[in-house]
């Protein structure tokens, strides 16, 4: 039996380590199985430097046609499972064909790598970056090892950030004016605003603000849209009268938001909306949805 098992065991152990592995930040990522894992965090234009170690199993040698490492940026659409669209692919050859008898390390470096898109785990789509080491072999399958990295890209404060202000209503029934102080929010931002009641003829029970994420994948007729409500935040309890002004203060930090992604590689978009909902005593809902832009703020200390 031992023999047999030995036959299927990988002939060597491949590991990828980063030069700054100890100090580099890690992102906590929820995996498909629900567990969280820590993944090294990068941003675009960074150097990805490290080394690959190949350690043949005890007393074995690895015969190969070359060793390479690739940095891949992939988009995976779940309805099209198994198909990956690589939008980035960089290769470094690590070794010429030969044989490895004992542990051998190969430093690698991808300098100022362009990683325009952020890593993303959505409902219908996944965008990920991986380092892939391939030991090419004849006759038997290549030996491959993957290392996920997580990419987040930071944006400076937008120079223009208009408020959202709008008057909406149902004729002779309800007129409100709402205002959100900004239209672009960073992930730890606070939505501040107010709702001003111009006319109230219905018996309102309460009012809440929802944060909704709309993920659309594919294009044309094959567009899939998935909407999630990430937050339901009660703004008001009871029925206001004309002239009341209700404050809004919603902290975004408790919610798992991502920045807004617009038309990522023509494959998908993730957009965020604020949905203001008024509920009357008969549980009828009156709402108005406004898109907001979410971005990842470049922290400047």
């Amino acid at each position, binding site marked *: 039996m031992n023999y047999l098992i030995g036959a299927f065991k990988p002939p060597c152990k491949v590991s990828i380590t980063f030069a700054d592995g100890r100090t580099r930040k890690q992102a906590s990522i929820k995996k498909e199985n629900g567990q969280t894992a820590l993944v090294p965090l990068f941003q675009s234009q960074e150097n990805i430097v490290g080394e690959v170690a190949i350690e043949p199993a005890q007393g074995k040698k690895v015969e190969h046609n070359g060793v390479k490492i690739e940095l891949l940026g992939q988009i995976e659409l779940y309805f099209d499972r198994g198909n990956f669209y690589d939008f980035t692919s960089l290769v470094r050859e690590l070794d010429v064909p030969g044989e490895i008898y004992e542990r051998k390390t190969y430093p690698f470096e991808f300098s100022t790598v362009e990683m325009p898109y952020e890593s993303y785990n959505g409902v219908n789509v996944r965008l990920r970056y991986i380092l892939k080491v391939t030991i090419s072999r004849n006759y038997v399958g290549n030996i491959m090892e993957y290392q996920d990295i997580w990419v987040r890209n930071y944006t400076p404060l937008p120079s223009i950030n208009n408020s959202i202000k709008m008057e909406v209503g149902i004729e002779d029934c309800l007129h409100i004016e709402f205002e959100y102080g900004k239209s672009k929010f960073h992930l730890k931002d606070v939505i501040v605003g107010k709702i001003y009641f111009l006319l109230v003829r219905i018996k309102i029970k309460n009012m809440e603000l929802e944060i909704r994420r709309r993920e659309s994948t594919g294009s044309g007729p094959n567009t899939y849209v998935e909407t999630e409500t990430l*937050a339901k935040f009660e703004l*008001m*309890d009871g*029925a206001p009268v004309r002239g*009341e002004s209700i*404050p809004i203060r919603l902290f975004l930090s408790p919610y798992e938001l991502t920045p807004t992604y617009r038309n990522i590689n023509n494959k998908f978009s993730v957009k965020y909306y604020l949905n203001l909902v008024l509920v009357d005593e008969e549980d009828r809902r009156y709402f108005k949805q406004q898109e907001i832009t979410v971005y990842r703020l470049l922290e400047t200390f």
Partner: protein
Amino acid sequence: MTMISESIEDEDKWLAEGIAGLQHNAFYMHRALDSNNLRDALKYSAQMLSELRTSRLTPHKYYELYMRAFDELRKLEMFFKEETKRGCSIIDLYELVQHAGNILPRLYLLCTVGSVYIKSKEAPAKDVLKDLVEMCRGIQHPVRGLFLRSYLSQISRDKLPDIGSEYEGDADTVMDAVEFELQNFTEMNKLWVRMQHQGPAREKEKREKERNELRDLVGKNLHVLSQIEGVDLEMYKETVLPRVLEQVVNCKDELAQYYLMDCIIQVFPDEYHLQTLETLLGACPQLQPTVDIKTVLSQLMERLSNYAASSAEVLPEFLQVEAFSKLSNAIGKVIEAQVDMPVVGAITLYVSLLTFTLRVHSDRLDYVDQVLGACVKKLTGKPKLGDNKATKQIMALLSAPLEKYNDIVTALNLSNYPRVMDYLDDGTNKVMAVVIIQSIMKNTTCISTADKVEALFELIKGLIRDLDGTPVDVLDEEDFKEEQNSVARLIHMLYNEDPEEMLKIICTVRKHILQGGPKRLPFTVPPLIFSALKLVRRLQGQEGDVVGEEMAVTPKKIFQLLHQTIEALSIVPSSELALRLYLQCAEAANDCDLEPVTYEFFTQAFILYEEEIADSKAQVTAIHLIIGTLQRMGIFGVENRDTLTHKATGYSAKLLKKPDQCKAVYACAHLFWVDDQDGVKDGERVLLCLKRALRIANAAQQMANVTRGSSGPVTLFVEILNKYLYFFEKGNPQITSSVIQGLIELITTEMQSDNTVSDPSADAFFGSTLRYIQFQKQKGGAMGEKYEPIKV
């Protein structure tokens, strides 16, 4: 009934459920607190507070739930405080609690952390407070909002950036404290007012009751405002009052307006009210027409009067701010604005104003009159008051000056006083008149000029004469007597030293009382007569002093007046009384040496006797009065005297009953023997009278014999014997001891006669008389000698 009880049961059940839910989560919250688990503490406290989101409880029950939550929040607050000591940033905590999805728990938590935040002084108190009061806008449900804001008020009370407070900031933070309280007040009031529109219309009454239970939550804010050290007069005047009033006026809600106006008046210092009177009063006419402003204003005036009474030093302030005219104006405007206000309301307001005036400006009669005048103006064009309450208020209005000044004379200067009285119904008018008289009597006020008397009688005219349309016959006899007696007493209080003025007074009174009609005259004429006679006596005393001066007032003049007055009485007819009064006058005229006048009075008396007095008993009384009076008249010449005595004797003998005849006739004997120096002493005619009396007595005996078969008692004889003895002693030469002796024997014989019924009292009388004779005999001296011959 069952529906109600069911709903109560339901409510108890819901409350129990609420408490259970609250306790359940509080338990886990405690565990989290004990293990310093902030995340769980927040989670369970939010869940606990979610119980307060219920809409099913009445405010009363909701309060119970709230109080439990309140206690739990105190523990949480302690925990937050410790948490910050352990290194958790208060700013983070302040954010963290705002992650709660439900607004009500979120805001309770925010207030709780806010309290810790302020204490930490990591941010200025004013900023935190401003944020809290602003965020609380999210609760628009009236009951939940009121309780939440009440909580905010509670936790912030000791943390306001007031002057001298440890939370006082750099500059002008008092203003922030005030702004905070004002805002919380405004919002709470809005919620409170709005409560009435929640739910079905048919439960409105119940809702109003519930709403009333919550009023102190709103009022508490005003109380806190009044406690803020930095709210000085300036700030009160410029900021606090205008803002509060703005809210009060704009809320357009009866219940709230009434309560809050009252609250303002009660919680802020009187001095402030005085200095902001115009603003405060200016709000009154803007209130809803149904608001009970009269009570509000009454309270205000009551407080101001107390304030005025508290120290003499504050009085100038009242003058300086023209408190009276401001109040007066305001009341006018309120009455004008509240078209539907019942008359009683308006009058009540005037009563309050009057009370205020009397207490604060007691020296300003013009103010008092002004108030009464305003009241008249309000009543003008309205019929007399049928409304009991309004009548009572008018009574109060009219009584107040009397009580204050204890002097009707002051009230008589009030030109509007009688005009107000005119609006009372007749019955009440009388009652008021009696009150006025009682006040005069109690204070023994002397009314000393004819003008005042005129005014007074105008006031009490309800008692003096029949007012138009009075149903005379429904009058209660007792009450009537009582009233008229009080008028009679009043007449004696009208007095002036100066005869001329006094005569004027008498004329005035006369003018009024002569309108009184037959029922009143018997009560009112006598006091007038005696009052006039008093004047006569006074003049009589002074006569010597005023010789040479032209006398405007002479007894003669007065007697003429009296004559006419009594005449009025005799027409009524009240002849017996008139007769007595004539005799009184005669006596006075006699003393004034006015023979013709005296004679005239007697003539009138006799005419009355002849023409009007038919009743035999009355005749007896009258003739004795005449005799008695006539006996004392020293003024008459022989002729007049003869005429009068002759008449008297003649009428005496013509009385119906023999015994009466007898008594009158022997009384007449005195007419001829006046026991003083210049008196008539006509012994013969005395004897004639006595003999005549004896004859009549005899006739009486015989008549008794005939009619009853037995003689009457000897009483008459004994009486005559006594008369004999009297004149005997006085030295009438016609009365001799032998005549007396004869009479004694006659009596003795009579007594022994079989026909005579013995009468113990007559026997005793005779016995006493004899003993008297015996006594005189034994006395010795001249009298003893005189009696000597008489044997008994």
